[in-house]
């Protein structure tokens, strides 16, 4: 696999920063009670969404999870419709009907965050089926957690994807916890990628704190999928810095500060920033300017969202069905 160009590295970096800053500011705003919702924050896992989505075309599809903001941003979602959605406003990405756990934009190939653990995996496989059926060379990607690989939906979908050589990539973000339950208390295996063998597809273990590693592994998986060689299971080993939900401290001491610190020491954004600066592809000033610009865009989007109207109660009964059958 050739080294990615500086352009690719910068792209990965920007996607990660856009996710991180959105989550940091959004997390605080939610914690202040300004949003009607709590947020499942993605902070720490940015390399996965960025590294995967940098390989995708606009017409490729993804399915996401309850921890879905990072995937939404990495696949091209914009701040304004995101914040409007999180604030429950009529001009949100889902007209205020979905919220954080259901944020989606099918025009961007985002088939939804999901409130049902494992719910998105068969849907991605269905999209892959449809792509193949329609003769499109688009691929689909499903993001899901370590905990989700204990749902029947994962196993059933993986089997079908491999059986029919469907053009999809199954991306497990192993952050080592499902809510507060550590991996060793919810499955007897250490490497989730091992499950791939049971379905007849390659399983690849990836350093999920390294955007370049994720990018490279996904590049091969997407190539395989587009070439009709079938699905790949990527296990990206990563970590969420905050609790299962929200930004306040941990609900209980289910993991040690040393553990958290050891992962933060490998922060994907800092690592890539250092690499870019060292390679002369990015100056410290440029990095700071990009962050400042991004923060300004976030502030503007929040102000825009908070000034936007709530949906009219009459909206309750619209969108339940498609009105005219095509």
């Amino acid at each position: 696999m050739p080294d990615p160009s500086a352009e690719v590295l910068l792209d990965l970096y920007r996607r990660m920063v856009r996710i991180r800053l959105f989550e940091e500011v959004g997390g605080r705003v939610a914690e202040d009670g300004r949003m009607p919702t709590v947020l499942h924050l993605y902070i720490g896992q940015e390399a996965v969404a960025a590294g995967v989505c940098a390989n995708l075309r606009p017409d490729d599809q993804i399915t996401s999870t309850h921890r879905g903001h990072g995937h939404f941003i990495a696949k091209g979602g914009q701040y304004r419709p995101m914040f409007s959605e999180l604030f429950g406003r009529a001009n949100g990405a889902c007209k205020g009907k979905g919220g954080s756990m259901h944020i989606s934009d099918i025009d961007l190939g985002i088939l939804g965050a999901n409130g049902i653990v494992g719910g998105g995996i068969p849907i991605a496989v269905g999209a892959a089926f449809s792509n193949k059926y329609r003769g499109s060379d688009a691929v689909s990607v499903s993001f899901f957690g370590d905990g989700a690989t204990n749902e029947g939906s994962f196993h059933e979908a993986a089997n079908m994807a491999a059986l029919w050589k469907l053009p999809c990539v199954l991306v497990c973000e192993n952050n080592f916890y499902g809510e507060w339950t550590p991996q060793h208390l919810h499955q007897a295996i250490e490497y989730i990628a091992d499950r791939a063998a049971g379905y007849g597809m390659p399983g690849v273990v990836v350093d999920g704190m390294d955007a370049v590693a994720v990018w490279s592994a996904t590049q091969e998986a997407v190539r395989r999928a587009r070439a009709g060689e079938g699905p790949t299971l990527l296990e990206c080993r990563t970590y969420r810095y905050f609790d299962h939900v929200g930004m306040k401290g941990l609900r209980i001491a289910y993991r040690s500060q040393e553990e958290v610190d050891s992962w933060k020491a490998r922060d994907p954004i800092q690592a890539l920033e250092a690499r870019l600066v060292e390679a002369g592809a990015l100056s410290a000033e440029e990095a700071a300017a990009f962050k400042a610009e991004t923060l300004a865009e976030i502030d503007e989007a929040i102000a825009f969202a908070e000034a936007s109207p709530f949906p009219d109660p009459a909206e309750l009964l619209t969108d339940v069905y498609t009105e005219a059958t095509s």
Partner: protein
Amino acid sequence: MTTITEIQTREISYLSAISEAITQCMREDDDVFLVGEDVRLGSVFHVYNDLLAEFGERRIVDSPISEAGLMGLGVGAAATGTRPVVDIMFMDFMGIALDQLVNQAAKMKYMFGGKARLPLTVMTMAGAGGSIAAQHSQSLEAWLCHVPGLKVVMPSGPYEAKGLVRSAIREDNPVVVVCNKWSLGIMGPVPEASYDIPLGQAHVVREGSDVSVVALGRMVHEAMAAATILAAEGIDIEILDPRTLSPLDVETLATSVRKTGRGLVVHEAVRFGGIGGEIAAAIQEEAFDWLEAPIMRIGAPFSPVPFSPSLEKAYVPNADTIVQTVRHLHARRV
């Protein structure tokens, strides 16, 4: 029958009442164990917070995120001599577990010619109202009531929660306990000692003469608020809490409607296809000759539960909706 005032009671929350019932059942009977996602640490709702310390990991079993397997494990364990309490965190996740509940648990005894015994309790949280949107807010009790072989209870307050959970655990049939996640903080007098609330018995929460309001779960509290407003207008409603939805105590409900001549059923589940339709029809068959007006139903509109507060406020039935419908019903004459 002892009444609630004759025994040692104190104010505790709906949440504590559930936890106390399970704790007492587990102390009494080693066959009772709890299995569910994150129950070791109390579950997302903190309902089981103190259980691990007292009962240890043999009896407080953290399961993988595997609702179908989890429910099936409950069925197999119940059929072979234990009394499992299976926690399905949000009622919405019942979708995944439904095959084991509906095709296995509910039918095993019958299909086996009566030989099996299924002392399975399923705990789950329903209820909208907190902007947690379409997949974490549903009230799906009608699905379960439609299945012969299952029993379904819906505690309205702390007293009901403790008694119904205990009865469910001691019952030799599968019982689903549909709690309301937005009621967990409700306080009320609850006896310290354990007690059963017999399954299949409705309760007259408030006596009244003008309109019978059958309210389910959290809607009992909305009906009580409505009663105060209506009393000021000279309308005296009787409030009934079915407590158990299947089997349904039609006689108590019909007796009330025969007295008042008017009936209203209130639940927060979607109105169309909701259990309110069954309740209204069952009452009507027993009280037709006494009716002054059609039995009405209040439920949620025919849409998924929305996220935005402005939509959700219009979605969940409340005291105002009840007041308006009761006024309308009260004014009707045959």
